[in-house]
């Protein structure tokens, strides 16, 4: 039986999209505390404002992250959500699950929490919503002992890394995203669980430039798959596309009225570098001009495949707008080979080069992209010990304000004004 009247929320039970209101009611039949989620949310719908207090530091012994404290500001009316802490559980790479494992998580959350979840949080974790403080340690004990799983990150630490599903089910992935993600997650358990950074730090791993985990938009280190050699062409399949025997773009436009496939209009003319053309019935690509954007491969997946010499571009410093404005990640390493054979030591060395510097110079709550802005990209490139290359910039600077160094100028900066005056009267 419903504990509170929720006339506003009840209006979100109709319509074709799955209703979170119906779902919370379903859970409330099992755990009556969930009626208070609906009761407090209904109050927010009436008042048009949140009823959660600011913060509250809670956690499990030895960890500085993984739990986010949350308390109701109307606990007397809604005692079931008086404490409503969030637990972040590190998701498995690529978010595959066995039902056995998912049921295990459900059973633990039934025992210790509200039974409501987010599958998943924006960063990637399994988010378990609503737990009392006294249940946190027992939950953590069961999570580690029964399921053999661990918490993710929160606060000024390495946040839970995430990846696109990569080679597990995608023909375009240029490296094993889920293995890199898992390996680095295990390698950096201390950095995930114990905040020691100026601010949050995120890794995301996408297998190709389509970037299905939005790495370039939201991660401090974005590892995005690419290749060095030539796009692999199956000319027989090209002919089949032209003949209309294979549906273009993998069938992604099937319900629109776009007419017959036109390789000139849909592929060649849309190539951002103009590096493709037809010679007779053969598709030609000047691969030295290609920037590997993925468009032609997206449109003709059975005819075109990424090259076979594969690796990743590594970009640094993306973030959402708070505070200085949104930033995309800046291309720093154009091509890096990623191999389990060396346990990704080149990527690890690169990451730790950033951390050693950022932990020294980064200000409190300054993302590494903001530190890069503050000190300038030239300084960052020098710190990382890299050669400056034109790929680091969209265009060269248009002002002449170069910070020349003393040693770069013959004779240095020290001069004698007395000597100068002997030749130049004031």
């Amino acid at each position: 039986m419903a504990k509170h009247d929720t006339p506003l929320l009840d209006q979100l039970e109709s319509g074709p999209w799955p209703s979170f209101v119906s779902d919370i009611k379903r859970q409330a039949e099992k755990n009556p505390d969930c009626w208070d989620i609906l009761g407090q949310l209904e109050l927010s719908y009436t008042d048009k404002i949140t009823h959660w207090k600011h913060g509250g530091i809670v956690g499990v012994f030895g960890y500085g992250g993984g739990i986010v404290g949350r308390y109701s500001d109307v606990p007397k009316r809604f005692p079931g959500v008086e404490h409503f802490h969030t637990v972040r559980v590190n998701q498995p790479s690529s978010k595959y699950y066995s039902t056995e494992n998912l049921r295990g998580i459900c059973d633990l959350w039934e025992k210790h929490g509200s039974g409501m979840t987010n599958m998943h949080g924006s960063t990637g974790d399994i988010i378990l919503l609503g737990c009392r403080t006294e249940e946190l340690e027992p939950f953590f004990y069961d999570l580690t002992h029964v399921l053999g799983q661990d918490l993710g990150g929160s606060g000024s630490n390495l946040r839970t890394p995430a990846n696109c599903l990569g080679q597990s089910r995608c023909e375009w992935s240029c490296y094993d995203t889920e293995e890199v993600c898992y390996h680095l997650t295990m390698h950096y358990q201390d950095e995930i669980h114990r905040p020691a950074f100026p601010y949050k730090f995120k890794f995301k791993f996408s297998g190709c430039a389509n970037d299905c985990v939005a790495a370039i938009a939201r991660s401090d280190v974005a590892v995005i798959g690419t290749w060095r050699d030539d796009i692999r062409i199956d000319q027989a399949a090209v002919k089949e596309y032209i003949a209309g025997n294979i549906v273009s773009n993998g069938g992604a436009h099937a319900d629109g009225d776009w007419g017959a496939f036109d390789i000139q209009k849909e592929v060649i003319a849309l190539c951002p570098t103009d590096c493709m053309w037809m010679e007779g019935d053969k598709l030609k690509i000047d691969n030295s001009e290609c920037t590997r954007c993925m468009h032609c491969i997206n449109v003709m997946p059975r005819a075109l495949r990424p090259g076979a010499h594969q690796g990743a571009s590594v970009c640094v410093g993306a973030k959402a707008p708070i505070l200085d404005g949104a930033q995309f990640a800046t291309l720093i390493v154009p091509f890096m080979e990623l191999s389990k054979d060396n346990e990704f030591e080149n990527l690890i060395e690169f990451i730790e080069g950033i951390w050693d510097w950022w932990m020294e110079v980064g200000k409190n709550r300054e993302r590494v992209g903001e530190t890069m802005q503050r000190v300038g990209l030239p300084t960052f490139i020098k710190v990382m010990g890299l050669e400056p290359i034109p790929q680091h910039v969209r265009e060269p600077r248009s002002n002449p304000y170069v910070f020349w160094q003393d040693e770069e100028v013959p004779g240095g900066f020290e001069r004698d004004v007395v000597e100068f005056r002997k030749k130049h009267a004031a």
Partner: protein
Amino acid sequence: MGYDPANPMVDRITDIGPHYYADFHPPVIAKNKGKWLYHEITQAGVLMHKSETGDECWTVRVGAARLISIEHIREICEIADAHCGGFLRFTTRNNIEFMVDSKDKVQPLLDDLASRGTKFPVGGTGAGVTNIVHTQGWVHCHTPATDASGVVKAVMDELFDYFTSMKLPAQVRIALACCLNMCGAVHASDIAILGVHRKPPMIDHTRITGVCELPLAIASCPLGAVKPAKAEIDGKEIKTVKVNVDRCMFCGNCYTMCPAMPLADPDGDGIAILVGGKVSNAKSAPKFSKLVIPFLPNTPPRWPETVAAIKNILETYAKDAKKYERVGEWAERIGWEKFFEKCNIPFTIKSIDDYRLAYDTWRTTTQFKYTNHIK
């Protein structure tokens, strides 16, 4: 056995990380990892991946509310046990993917999903609207300027036809963040729904001493609007802060640092709409979303103004854009002045940037189009 509160460190296990991913691969995935040749979307919500071994993985993509109960997850498990050998996955955009290893197993799965009411909508592939990534909103967050789950439900109900079909010029990614912190990273979405505050923070002088480190609160303001001040509480002078409201841009960063500076407000808060962002590098480089509607009110439970605004932009784009053109690519081709004219969205001074790097967005060419903005 189990946790012993008297001896919390006994048998303690830490830093074991997530479960090893490969244990959760369905057999067809485990066998064909790294061997996939191509894929095809055979109908909205159904993908077929072909391996060089000849194997096929058929995936049925299903929308979910993101905010889901363990009862719902158990039902998902029941479906995966019945059809998928006990495996499934979730996508970055909160969809569920049920995978089977042959075509003849797809229809029984689709029939089962359809028999369960509105809980498991199939779609979210190709040139359509897939699931909205979003944040917590009023259901769980302390800083939101709007709800998340309710707005998303209202928008997806209205755009449902675009979730279950692939008739748009390109994929359209919609995202919602309930405040400027943007836990949902909406700054690179085709259409972004963003909760915004419009009133400066209040100062709770009675609480500030206990809960706030004043230098951090002062340093948190990107525009230097938070200054040290003194106030009298119970006849005693205390150190506190004041806010230069002319400088405040309502980012809420001070409240994040100082709980004694709340800024949420029923009338002040609402939604801004930004459009034209993208993450993918395909064709054009990634783009930020641009602010086109500075404010729409919070009107729970169904936010009709926000829903109408998004539907209008989506359908204007659908009618006018070329095949493969993302919303931002369309707006840049026709010009932003044409975007405002075609969408019949009033252009206001609030869409002109006056923050850092603003100059990059000012027009420094004589090339423009004559639209109804030029009187």
